[in-house]
């Protein structure tokens, strides 16, 4: 079982990102459960979405407390909540940021980091900071757990139409291409 926790803010599409990712993973033959967190339904509030993926049926319909992967689609949500809470060792962190790795504090559990300046790209594509599909591209690039083709198919099967679909397909591809992946060597105690 692989557990992903998506952090964002209300209005950015964290829940929808979970749904699109779930559809793409099911498309590839996986079992998936996507459960959104239930905060207050207002724009700007920190929100989370939980996604489990496995090769066999998943029975737990619960939140995620020990994620293998943390996907942050907002640059500042990490100031409001501890996005690394309960994270497993050898974890993967995906972050929307304009900063290089050297300016970020990477916790000990994280060994793979995928960075993408999704806000800048979103402002270019959508004229609004909607980062969810960009960061799904970043997720595909960094983890290799889902293909870009399956994500494209999931977007095409969603409620997006016409110009909106075109923009999101572009965002997906841009997120994939513009993400820098860093593998962090674990310091071994002498």
């Amino acid at each position, binding site marked *: 079982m692989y557990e992903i926790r998506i952090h964002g803010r209300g209005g950015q599409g964290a829940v929808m990102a979970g749904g699109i990712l779930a559809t793409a993973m099911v498309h590839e033959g996986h079992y998936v459960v*996507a*459960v959104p967190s239930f905060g207050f339904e207002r724009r700007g509030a920190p929100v989370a979405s939980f996604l489990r993926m496995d090769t066999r049926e998943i029975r*737990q319909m619960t939140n995620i407390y020990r994620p293998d992967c943390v996907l942050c689609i907002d640059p500042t949500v990490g100031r409001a909540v501890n996005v690394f809470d309960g994270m497993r060792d050898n974890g993967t962190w995906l972050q929307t940021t304009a900063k290089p790795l050297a300016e970020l504090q990477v916790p000990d559990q994280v060994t793979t980091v995928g960075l993408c300046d999704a806000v800048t790209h979103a402002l270019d594509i959508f004229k609004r900071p909607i980062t969810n599909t960009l960061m799904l591209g970043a997720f595909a690039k960094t983890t290799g757990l889902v293909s870009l083709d399956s994500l494209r198919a999931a977007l095409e099967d969603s*409620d997006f139409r016409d110009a909106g679909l075109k923009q999101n397909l572009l965002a997906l591809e841009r997120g994939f291409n513009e993400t820098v992946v860093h593998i962090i060597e674990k310091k071994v105690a002498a």
Partner: protein
Amino acid sequence: MSAVLKSKPKAIVCDGNEAAAWAVTLARVDMVAVYPITPQSSLVEYLAKFVADGKLNAEIIDVEGEHSVLSVLHGGTLAGARTYTGTCGPGLAFMFEPYLRTPGLRMPMVMSIVTRDTLTPQSVWGGHQDAMSVREVGWIQMYCETVQEVLDTTIMGYKVAEHRDVMLPVNVCHDGNYLSYGATRVELPTQEEVDAFLPPPATNWHAALDPDRPMAVDPLTGGAGGPGPSMFVRYRKGQCSGMQNSLAVIEAAHEDWARIVGRRHAPLVESYRMDDAETALVTLGSMTGAGKDAVDEARDRGERVGLVKVKTYRPFPVQAIAKALSGVKAVGVVDRSVSFGWNSGPLYQDVIGALQFATQRPAAMSFIGGLAGADITTDHFGRVIERTQALAKDGQVGETVWLNEKD
């Protein structure tokens, strides 16, 4: 989401609210009346979308409140329509007067309760308190464990409700938040399969609104003189018989569903790893998945633990529960709601009542968790197992345990 996967046309990824809307569509419901309320709102939105898309050929009536939702559907049902609605929490409370009348009028409708904890404290999150507050009103109530079960049970609900030996309304309960918004892979049955399973509604023209044959429905009945008392008793006894008859009808409907659609769900109770179990958990709704995982962990440690899931809660499957739990030493009943009268969970009361009929009666304790959207995880179930195992050893029934008290 509503994403139909192109490679496998029968599989979709959707949440429980969308699954219920698909069920309504496949059941060829004629009439839907709605008033949105969290966490049911997206269910209503899906229904409106399906009608607008031409998928669902039903009259959808937007009314000014839940009291009118059910009153409007009474008219539709009495005119022979297959009807549906969904609600929860405060909406259910506002609906209470026509809700009370529905089973007495023997109306075969299906209504989802997207379960929500009741006010107050102010809360918009899931919990079984709303459905539990109406457990003795005379509706059949089935609780779902998975999104798939929401879809399948909502369709099966019509087969149960419309059966001549039943003729009662059915609540399909799916957990607010965890099932209403939780999305999984779901197998969509074909329209042909559902048509083969569920024939068009057989209207009870004995008590139906027919302009060519005007009749009074539900005249004043009862009182202390004349034919009143015995007539009222016959109505009540008939209603109770319908409830009891539904147990066999629910089993038959699940069997038909398995035969035609190829998917089998336990109709009344499901026994999970109960062979040789010394300790048993009893669960209701979406918490069951985490409960089964916790049972697997205990079994891996060599502990003799099993789980009994209650699917049909009203009528309560007394004999099935007594049989499933006979022989175990201790039972831990996990409720997602409260019985204020007993300072325990309501399912706990039902279970200890049913254990009166067990050949060997185990000790039982009440656990309450998952109120107002709180999570019940495998760790919580681990604590339930530990405490119930202690009960199996010493037989000392302790106070009700509140699982999320120190979360």
